């Protein structure tokens, strides 16, 4: 009680004291006329009428929300009005600030170079910015609540939304505007919400296709004159009237022409692999048979390591593009042959275990120093530039292997010790392995 009393505001005290004075005066007047009860009753009556009037004014004011013109009341009710209008003003201020922030946020998101769509648990659209609306042709307000795959119906996009594959997001061409759009889903903190980012990659796509066309055209244009040159060089080499002093230069020229042909061939192959198009259908490939054939080819060479062992522990088939898998195996084997001396060994191994299928090429060649291994699959990267040039080869072999393996969801593992030898192992995922009986059934 004391606490409340001490917490009274000055105006509260004033009202209480005013009431006290009024009562005292009424009491005195009552004493004077000998009607104390009547005087007190009249005073109380007037007091309560005034209070009721004030309460009604406050109520009217609150209901009609005329904040800017609070009723002019003295005493406790005046204090109440001041406090309420202060709270209201503060709320108003905060609201203005939040709306301002929201407006700013909206302006920022619409100026964003990327499109953003916020999706709910069932992929329904909750919000999107202007860029996304423009690219995906969504309509503000109307399309909120509709599932995004109902409006953006590209099969690749729908697959991505369902399976999350490919992980880097699909790139699809808009049917009407021919714009290329890249999609990417970002999972936000809670699992319920997903953010779909859309990027316009038309320019990248255009550059990519220009580059591809350039490589293809340039390689093609280089190949025709080269055919002519090697043709004449062959004729020269067979010419018996030629001065013997020319024999060595002609031989060297032929070798360099051959090397140039390999480079062009590899460049073409690499650009085809990089373009990401699956130009050929995937089928069940007999890797064991392919390795056996490649071994036979190696054995037919004049300069080859003493021993090429074949260790086939599985007859399982591998799902993939045959020509690409062939270039993987042949590039690895060619490298092994190139860097292994005549008295060395090569071992080809093909096996299947719980992790998937594996292909390894082990040699007892010169080996590779530790620091070169991470960079081996870069284009034109040479461990020993001088030596490699005399060996021929384009410097693109391992880059081709890497890209071809990527397209088969496979990885390349390189282990090597200088002077002891190297092992190149390709790991294919379990999903690509087809056991022989199933494969036969499928083809039958």
């Amino acid at each position, binding site marked *: 009680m004391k606490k409340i009393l001490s917490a009274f505001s000055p105006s509260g005290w004033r009202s209480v004291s005013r009431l006290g004075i009024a009562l005292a005066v009424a009491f005195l007047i009552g004493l004077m006329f000998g009607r104390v009860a009547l005087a007190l009753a009249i005073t109380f009556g007037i007091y309560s009428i005034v209070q009721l009037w004030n309460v009604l004014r406050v109520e009217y004011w609150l209901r009609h929300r005329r904040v800017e013109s609070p009723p002019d009341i003295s005493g406790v009710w005046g204090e109440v009005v001041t406090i309420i209008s202060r709270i209201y003003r503060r709320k108003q201020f905060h609201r203005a600030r939040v709306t301002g922030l929201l407006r700013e946020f909206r302006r920022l998101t619409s100026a964003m170079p990327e499109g953003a769509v916020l999706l709910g648990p*069932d992929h329904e659209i909750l919000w999107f910015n202007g860029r996304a609306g423009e690219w995906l*042709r969504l*309509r503000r307000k*109307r*399309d909120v*609540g*509709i*599932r995004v*795959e*109902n*409006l953006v*119906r*590209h*099969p690749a996009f*729908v697959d991505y939304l369902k399976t999350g594959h490919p992980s880097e997001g699909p790139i699809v061409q808009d*049917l*009407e505007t021919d714009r290329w759009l890249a999609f990417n889903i970002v999972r936000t903190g809670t699992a319920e919400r997903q953010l779909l980012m859309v990027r316009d990659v038309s320019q990248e796509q255009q550059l990519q296709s220009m580059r591809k066309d350039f490589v293809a055209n340039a390689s093609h244009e280089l190949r025709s004159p080269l055919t002519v040159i090697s043709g004449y060089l062959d004729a020269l080499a067979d010419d018996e009237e030629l001065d013997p002093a020319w024999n060595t230069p002609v031989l060297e020229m032929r070798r360099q022409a051959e090397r140039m042909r390999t480079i062009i061939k590899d460049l073409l192959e690499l650009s085809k692999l990089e373009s990401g198009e699956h130009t050929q259908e995937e089928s069940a490939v007999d890797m064991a048979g392919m390795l056996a054939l490649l071994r036979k080819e190696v054995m037919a060479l004049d300069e080859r390591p003493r021993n090429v062992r074949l260790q086939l522990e599985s007859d399982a088939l591998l799902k993939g593009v045959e020509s690409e898998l062939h270039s993987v195996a042949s590039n690895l084997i060619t490298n092994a042959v190139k860097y292994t001396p005549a008295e060395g060994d090569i071992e080809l191994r093909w096996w299947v275990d719980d992790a998937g299928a594996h292909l390894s090429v082990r040699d007892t060649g010169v080996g590779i120093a530790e620091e070169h291994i991470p960079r081996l699959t870069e284009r034109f990267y040479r461990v020993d530039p001088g030596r490699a040039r005399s060996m021929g080869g384009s410097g693109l072999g391992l880059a081709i292997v890497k890209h071809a393996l990527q397209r088969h969801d496979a990885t390349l593992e390189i282990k090597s010790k200088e002077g002891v030898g190297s092992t190149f192992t390709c790991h294919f995922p379990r999903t690509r392995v087809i056991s022989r009986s199933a494969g036969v059934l499928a083809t039958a």
Partner: protein
Amino acid sequence: MALSALFFSQSAGYTASDLKGDVMEKSDLSHHILSRYNDDLERVRTNVLQMGGFVEEQLKQAVTALVQGDSRLGEQVARGDQKVNAMEVAIDDDCSRILATRAPAASDLRLIVAVIKTITDLERIGDEAEKIGYIGSRLAAVERPADRYREIKHLGRLVGDMVHEALDAFARLDPEGAVAIAKKDRLVDEEFEAIQRQCITFMMEDPRTIRRALDVLWVARALERIGDHAKNVCEYVVYMVHGKDIRHLSMEDVEKHLQSRSQRQQESLPPAR
């Protein structure tokens, strides 16, 4: 006075929502107490639109194969039609199951009926795309005309847009949009006429081109048919939303009907706050 205002606003709200029951809204699909039922209906609709998306892609690739003379792409389209057929069968099964187990009524029933009709038309569009892809891969082998099939490309784009927008109207349950698209069918017909005349001219000029001109004519015919199927889909959208069959009405009558309908709705609805 305050009380009476409160009462009025409440009663007005009640009549408005009552009247709206006639018109299907997108939120309408989530009004069932059985959430599995909602999921079923929603899934059917999503599957139809996915089938539509695949058919759209097929159509686009078929025209691209023809215009660019890419025989491999053409064959790929022709093979892809199997997938369209499989999708149709799967959705059809789903619809039968819902009809049998849920016994849908009113707007849900209209949705199922419209879906069953829509997938038939989508499947036909797929068939026509297959035909175009097949002819495209055949035409890749012969010499291409000087205009590089520009007319076909144009018609293909027009028809592709129609299919796309028809499916959009289906997704948004937007009958006004659907009617606007259905009116585009006239443009497609005119374009087809023009190609027909052009082909006849070519054939008269040089009888050696008859074979190719006939093939082009087949493609144009297929595209024109696709336009008709897209128009059908639009009609089902109107049916689904308003419960009104507009299949054999002229477009002007349909518009008048829809306008009077939306006006009536607006009058009965309270003014927007």
